[in-house]
């Protein structure tokens, strides 16, 4: 059983006790513990249940690569699933629960899955999709949904109470990893004068060197590490970050780093996580290496751990995973674990070494210490259900006949090491297979390249394959100098000499024992988190999966939250063996960022809640808000939909607003309308190209409605153009179109007609615009007083004037979107609210009624005016909408003219705009289709048109609609049927609604009302 050792633990403070709970049970650890080390110290070996088979699982690693020890952390709003216990620093009051078990961690009902592993083979999901079909929906899916998965998702109404932020940084060099290679690289770069950001994902500098007994310049590694950090801290050009993981490397030197600022210290006012968005010249990945598990039967049982992790727990946290530990290995490095455990007074019954010989210095030391070293030996089985009670040894080159049973309570395994090449690979760096040392390492001739085509990432130290301490230090300096010379810095100080015991070559071992039969291979785990075994990969190979990417998806190997950090190399080696291919020919799967999962909070940063996106407010926004407006989002604006009074429904409010406007006086905040000034000697010529109709002939003082089409001929925006003077126009666009149309103008002016003298400015927010609408519109303006003659003779429909109204500097436009007498008054934005208040006060005797966007929509529909986005959807041309009158026949060219010459555009069978009146007066459903006879090749009912706008008209007391119907204008009076979404009663035909085709102008067809 795991326990706290009486001595040791370089990272813990035994004088400080920290209380925490696991599955409701109160436990204690020490300051400096991780959750994993504290659980092990408390004798808690089982930390979770596996994904598919619900097998009990213990911690396997000591760092970011941990596949098993995932826990739910926190409660309520702070609850977070799938947190790795190995990288969770212990704090007072920490509360964790284990995952994927029912009813309890120790006794799980789903464990029955493990008794039937043949029901869930590789490709299980895909196979259940195929046959028998009803089984998926009624049998497999409900079972899988209940039993699969890892952590519990947060409650739907949980709201993360923590704060997150993002930092932007520009630097010469990012160094990922603060082990001895990273520190040495930082010293080189710092001395050379480069700006450096050095990130270390754990809370401590130095990496593995202190654990592995490395000496640097004749002193323990820890001494050199402390000195190096002190030197670096004094350099102004070097920036050190602990608990900060370089998560991803992207194009052109863009780097994302994830800093866990306050995970270990909740309750402080610091942000919890910080996302660094860095632009750097070069990246040094000093990310070290990860130890690989060995694939022997029962290698997933609690108590089986990586040999390096066993060492870490002993040295860093003073924890031993067991009293009797068998070491199983294919290399010399694991002997360090045996020696260390022996030094700590623990028993190591034997070292099972898969190699036929083992005579390196470390093996000699082990033998000298009296540790039994057995060569050509592997593990044929692990005894124990919820922990290890013994192992069965066998010959590695055999089929697994047991040669000896050894009693033990822990197993330390090592299958060799793999350089962490993720950051090299994220942006396209290629790898080369080192057959002698059995790992992929960066291919220096094929680095990821930046905007100049040069490599911008180097790997340093173990990440470059330099695993031995002496090589690591030398390699770190060499690679740092390479990166620095690419940045035009030079460095040349003496390189410290690091040393550790020599190691003899490893033996690649992908299956243990080599000749294991099917039963044994079905118990060898490759991917611990996703429950993928050697037998699954071999089955995939037999079923024809040759590509490693396909095998990954078929078996789910490496697809769990650990992204196969421990499993990928073993898995592809097994696949290569099964395919009888070389490992480099099979290749690796793609390494994608982030290196380990980062929080959604950090990705969102401060963009949450009200500041998720900017809100645009008109000058009258505060009034609308204070007067109970129901908001409608329009682009980034909020516009009042209507102003319901107490007790009034939205529909009642809309009807009241329309009736008041039609009978007396309505006021609309039209400030969001796009306003673009187009000025210059060629402004008229330019607008003639932009609009389908002629704008250059417009006289100063006049307004003209116009249509804009894309080069594809489709209607994209409409609005009123105002000629301000000889060389300037004011272009009104739709609310949503202002920025887009301004950009559209600039595109043509800068990239096509750059010799035309035209200047544009988007002045949308410089003006407040209020529509004064209704029979009493002139009366209220007369009451305010104006130096402009507002009479119909002096200022007729579609004219405009500038002057003073009620003391305000104003432009008055006689334009109408409602079919009523209407004055749109524009004043500088700062005076908008004052004008609004003055209009309300003067209009009180006329029952002045502010109206919202819905009343606007209904009134324009009553008049048959089109709305961009309702009547248009990117496939509609002006000719479809009865707007042929707005298309100039005289102009040689305008944007969209060529496209409208195409045969499909001139086809008389196009759907065209009409009005629709239901026979029963009801409102047609939005989006209904006009039904035609017969069905199409897909068995769907044929259609002959569709509804584009549909409302209840309070003016006409009935439903009105506009729609596009085949040859519609030629079919006036015809009655056609529209579908509904009402579900028909059993045996009955789907319900339809009949409507008559009529003119789209329902109200004041002669247009007399605005012309007074």
């Amino acid at each position, binding site marked *: 059983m795991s326990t706290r050792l009486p001595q040791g633990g370089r990272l813990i403070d035994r004088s400080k006790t920290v209380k925490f709970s696991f599955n409701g049970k109160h436990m204690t650890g020490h300051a400096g513990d991780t959750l994993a080390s504290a659980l092990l110290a408390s004798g808690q070996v089982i930390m979770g249940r596996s994904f598919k088979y619900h097998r009990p699982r213990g911690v396997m690693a000591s760092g970011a690569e941990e596949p098993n020890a995932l826990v739910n952390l926190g409660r309520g709003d702070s609850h977070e699933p799938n947190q790795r216990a190995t990288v969770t620093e212990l704090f007072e009051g920490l509360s964790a629960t284990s995952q994927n078990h029912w009813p309890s961690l120790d006794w799980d009902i789903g464990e029955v899955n493990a008794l039937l592993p043949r029901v869930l083979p590789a490709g299980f999901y895909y196979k259940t999709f195929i046959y028998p079909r009803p089984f998926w929906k009624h049998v497999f899916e409900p079972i899988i949904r209940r039993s699969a998965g890892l952590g519990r998702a947060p409650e739907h109404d949980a709201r993360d109470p923590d704060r997150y932020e993002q930092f932007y940084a520009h630097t010469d060099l990012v160094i990922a990893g603060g082990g001895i290679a990273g520190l040495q690289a930082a010293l080189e770069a710092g001395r050379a004068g480069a700006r450096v950001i050095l990130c270390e994902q754990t809370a401590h500098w130095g990496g593995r060197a202190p654990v592995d007994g490395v000496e640097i310049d004749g002193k323990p590694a820890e001494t050199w590490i402390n000195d190096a950090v002190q030197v670096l801290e004094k350099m102004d050009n070097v920036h050190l970050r602990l608990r900060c993981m370089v998560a991803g490397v*992207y*194009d*052109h*030197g*863009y780097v994302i780093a994830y800093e866990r600022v306050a995970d270990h210290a909740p309750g402080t006012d610091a942000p919890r996580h910080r996302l660094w968005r860095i*632009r750097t010249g070069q990246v040094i990945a000093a990310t070290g290496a990860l130890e690989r598990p060995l694939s022997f039967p029962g290698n997933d049982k609690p108590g089986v751990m990586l040999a390096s992790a066993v060492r870490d727990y002993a040295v860093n946290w003073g924890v031993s995973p067991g009293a009797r530990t068998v070491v199983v290995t294919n290399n010399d490095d694991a002997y360090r674990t045996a020696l260390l455990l022996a030094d700590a007074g623990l028993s190591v019954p034997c070292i099972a070494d898969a190699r036929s010989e083992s005579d390196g210095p470390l093996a000699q030391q082990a033998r000298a210490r009296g540790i039994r070293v057995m060569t050509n030996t592997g593990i044929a089985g692990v005894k124990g259900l919820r922990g290890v009670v013994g192992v069965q040894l066998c010959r590695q080159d055999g089929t697994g006949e047991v040669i000896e049973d050894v009693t033990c309570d822990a197993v330390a395994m090592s299958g060799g090491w793999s350089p962490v090449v993720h950051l090299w690979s994220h942006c*396209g760096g290629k790898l080369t297979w080192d057959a002698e040392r059995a790992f992929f390492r960066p291919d220096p001739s094929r680095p990821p*390249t*930046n*905007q*100049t*085509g040069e490599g911008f990432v180097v790997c340093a130290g173990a990440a470059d394959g330099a695993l031995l301490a002496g090589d690591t230090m030398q390699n770190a300096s060499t690679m740092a100098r390479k990166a620095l010379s690419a940045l035009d810095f030079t460095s040349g100080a003496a390189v410290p000499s690091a040393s550790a015991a020599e190691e003899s070559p490893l033996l690649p071992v992908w299956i243990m024992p080599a000749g294991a039969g099917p039963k044994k291979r079905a118990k060898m785990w490759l991917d611990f988190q996703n429950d993928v075994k050697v037998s699954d990969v071999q089955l995939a190979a037999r079923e024809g999966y040759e590509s490693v990417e396909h095998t990954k998806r078929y078996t789910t190997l490496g697809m769990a939250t650990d992204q196969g950090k421990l499993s990928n190399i073993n898995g592809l080696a097994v696949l290569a063996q099964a395919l009888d291919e070389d490992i480099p020919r099979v290749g690796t799967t793609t390494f994608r960022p982030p290196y380990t999962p980062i929080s959604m909070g950090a990705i969102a940063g401060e963009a949450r809640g009200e500041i998720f996106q900017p809100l645009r407010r008109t000058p009258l926004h505060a009034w609308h808000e204070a007067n109970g407006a129901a908001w409608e989002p329009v682009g980034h604006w909020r516009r009042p939909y209507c102003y319901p009074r107490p007790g009034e429904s939205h529909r009642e409010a809309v009807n009241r607003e329309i009736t008041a406007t039609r009978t007396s006086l309505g006021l609309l905040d039209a400030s969001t309308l796009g306003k673009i000034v187009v000025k210059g000697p060629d402004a008229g010529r330019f607008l003639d190209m932009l609009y389908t109709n002629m704008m250059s002939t417009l006289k100063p003082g006049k307004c003209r409605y116009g249509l804009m089409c894309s*080069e*594809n001929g489709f209607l994209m925006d409409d609005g009123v153009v105002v000629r301000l003077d000889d060389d300037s126009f004011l272009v009104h666009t739709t609310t949503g179109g202002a920025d887009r149309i301004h*950009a559209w103008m*600039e*595109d043509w002016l*800068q*990239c*096509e007609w*750059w010799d035309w003298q035209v200047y544009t400015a988007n002045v949308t927010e410089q003006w407040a615009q209020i529509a004064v609408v209704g029979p009493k519109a002139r009366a209220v303006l007369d009451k305010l007083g104006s130096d402009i003659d507002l009479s119909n003779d002096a200022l007729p429909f579609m004219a405009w004037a500038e002057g003073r109204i009620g003391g305000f500097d104003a432009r008055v436009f006689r334009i109408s979107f409602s079919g009523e007498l209407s004055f749109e008054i524009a004043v500088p934005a700062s005076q908008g609210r004052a004008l609004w208040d003055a209009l309300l006060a003067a209009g009180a005797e006329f029952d002045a009624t502010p109206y919202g966007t819905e009343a606007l929509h209904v009134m324009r529909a009553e008049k048959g005016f089109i709305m961009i986005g309702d009547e248009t959807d990117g496939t509609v041309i002006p000719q479809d909408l009865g707007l042929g009158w707005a298309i100039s026949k005289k102009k*040689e*060219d305008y944007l969209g*003219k*060529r*496209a409208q*010459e*195409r045969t499909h555009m001139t086809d008389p069978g196009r759907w065209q705009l009409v009005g629709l009146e239901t026979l029963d007066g009801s409102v047609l459903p939005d989006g209904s289709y006009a039904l035609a006879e017969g069905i199409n090749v897909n068995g769907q009912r044929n259609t002959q048109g569709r509804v584009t706008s549909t409302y209840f008209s309070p003016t006409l007391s009935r439903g009105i609609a506009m729609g596009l119907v085949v040859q519609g204008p030629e079919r006036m009076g015809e009655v056609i049927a529209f579908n509904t979404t009402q579900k028909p009663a059993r045996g009955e035909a789907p319900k339809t609604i009949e409507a008559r085709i009529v003119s789209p102008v329902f109200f004041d067809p002669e247009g007399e009302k605005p012309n007074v």
Partner: protein
Amino acid sequence: MLTLTCPCCGISACETELAPGGEAHLKRFGPGSPDADFESYLFLRQNSRGVHFERWRHAMGCGKWFLAARDTATLEVFGTYSAQTTEPPADIIAAIRAKRPDWSPA
């Protein structure tokens, strides 16, 4: 996340400041042009794997359009230049040839 230097304001801009505008140096065909010419102008694109001329706008900066010569596979940038031109200037062609000796303009 590309970086491109805006030739108008001189700023090395991150992709988040820029708006893409598709292939550069398209010749506009207007009313009366043959269907094939109009089709190629409106719809047909090189979609090169390798050297590509393209339009970008420094939308969140100076607002100006510019053109870039870039490798679509490696993302190497050979140069950026004014949008007020109908073909890549000689120095851009030379910069591409220096890096891609086998390349010839389409």
